[in-house]
């Protein structure tokens, strides 16, 4: 008994110190970006900025926020993330549930079809032609439909469902509950940790995506997403710095630098995630457990 306790104390010290160190290491890039984003872009060019800005400036954010499409793009990004996540979770849960049932007649077939999608890819041109032919170009649905079924998320949720005591679904069946009822009334409430996790993954996937916007909706201004608008600013800064179209005058006092823009951009898109995160975090960090809800 005693030896266990001593071991635990040693383990604890090791644990806390190790985690604190690793946390500090992973916090660094964010602090660094934060410093660069608030630093004067011309001064940033000199490099050597670590934890604090050298010459404070709001110029980088000024450049980003002077884009008048930004507010609309921000709103649409939220709409896309919320709808995409809600629908995504719904579909993931239904598919995962069906695949977790041993008696489901197409279980193996659908499972195989699904897993295969993780490793095959028809390429950019055929996909583009498809999107064009089914009239999803410049259509909001192009943000949602192709991402609705994600094999990776479904497999994770399926394995979680499979790990639950089988008695749960059995007893629901005895009570005459249908599959929809079993899934939504019984399984999901006790699967909150995994639901929260998948929610986070799906939401981040939607929030971060810009390539579908660029590829399939670049001619529809009203479908512009935040990340896409920011990418445009960044690309322009990169083009200017790559010199193909350099136009810095002899006495120019302000220069757009890609590092500075990228830093401000990363902060702008990451902060919303950091704000929302704690609401999801509590579900998978606090131990929402089978036993606790099983009554």
């Amino acid at each position, binding site marked *: 008994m005693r030896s266990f306790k001593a071991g635990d104390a040693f383990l604890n010290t090791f644990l806390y110190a190790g985690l604190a160190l690793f946390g500090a290491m*992973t916090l660094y890039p964010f602090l660094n970006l934060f410093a660069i984003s608030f630093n004067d872009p011309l001064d940033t060019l000199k490099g050597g900025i670590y934890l604090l800005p050298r010459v404070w400036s709001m110029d980088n954010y000024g450049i980003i926020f002077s884009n008048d499409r930004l507010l609309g793009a921000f709103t649409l990004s939220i709409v896309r993330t919320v709808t995409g996540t809600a629908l995504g979770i719904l579909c993931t849960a239904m598919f995962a549930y069906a695949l977790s049932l041993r008696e489901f007649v197409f279980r193996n077939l659908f499972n195989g079809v699904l*897993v295969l999608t993780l490793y095959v890819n028809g390429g950019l041109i055929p996909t583009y032609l498809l999107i064009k032919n089914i009239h999803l170009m410049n259509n909001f649905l192009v943000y949602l439909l192709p991402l609705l079924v994600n094999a990776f998320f479904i497999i994770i949720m399926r394995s979680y469902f499979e790990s639950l005591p089988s008695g749960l679904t059995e007893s629901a069946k005895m009570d005459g509950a249908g599959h929809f009822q079993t899934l939504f009334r019984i399984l999901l409430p006790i699967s909150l940790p995994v639901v929260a996790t998948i929610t986070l993954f799906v939401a981040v996937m939607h929030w971060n995506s810009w390539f579908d916007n660029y590829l399939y909706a670049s001619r529809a201004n009203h479908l512009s997403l935040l990340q896409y608008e920011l990418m445009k600013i960044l690309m322009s800064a990169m083009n200017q710095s790559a010199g193909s179209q350099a136009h810095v005058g002899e006495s120019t006092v302000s220069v757009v630098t890609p590092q500075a823009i*990228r830093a401000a951009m990363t902060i702008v898109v990451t902060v919303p995630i950091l704000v929302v995160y704690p609401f999801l*975090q509590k579900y998978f960090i606090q131990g929402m457990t089978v036993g606790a809800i099983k009554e």
Partner: protein
Amino acid sequence: MKSGINPASRRKATPSLLRKMLIQKELLLMTAPLITLVIVFNYMPLYGWIMAFQDYKVVKGVSGSPFVGFDKFVQLFQDDQFFLVLRNTLVMGFLNLIAGFIGAIVLALALNEVRVKWFKRSVQTITYIPHFVSWVVVANIAHMFLSPDGGLLNILLQKIGIIDQPFYFMAKSHWFWPIHTFLSFWKEVGWSSIIYLAVLSGINPDLFEAADVDGAGKLKKMWHISIPGLMPTAIILLTLSVGWIIQSGYESQFLLGNPIVLDYSEVLDLYALRYSFQIGDYSIGAAISIFKSVVSILMVLSINYLAKRTGSGRLI
């Protein structure tokens, strides 16, 4: 793959598929529309693979381009460079997989043991942030720290007397793989640990209480409760990731690499970019894509087979 037929239905003579479908109409309602989406968005574009057997020209399209049989594959397999980048891809993919897999589990287990709530929450939040930082930034930071010209690591190593001349990390071929693995680990491990944390928090607390009563220490509880609880998910994630070893992308290697370490840094996806898309030869790109898919699927099937043999979780 045996499908479990429940005893109730076994009594009757094998019911027709149609009959089964009728009984399971609710499940079909849940899945059929979605599987249609999968077929449309994931399988229909696969006709693009035909390009690999053609001399595809954008102007002519798949229907009009001439067929050349396996020429593109022959071209690929006759190129020494292809095997070099394949080696690099597999080695780096494997290193990343192992480091990331073990790291994420260890981090999740460690966080799960922390009892101080604010500490647990903040460390967990902080560790996943690098996931949102692009590789360009990570590479910049790496170059800054490792630079022989005033890089912090070199200054530090010189101060404590390990080296007397600045060390040019980025110009040493055999340093590339460890540096790349370390940075990938650092960037992604927090994010990957989220799934394991979720699974850990789903483990029945009764089990831990019972262990406490038995006087088990932290390590013992980890070994006998937490790790077995993680196993099914871990095995499935491992199986899935093995398939991605060859689909590594190229961003990180491209940004961290340089001409001196090219023989160790170039990967398959960069090769595909340079020898396919950049020169407008989409056929070779399709051939590489097919090659990657075949390798992925073979690797996943073998790991899945092993997992089934050992009785741990299974993917398919």
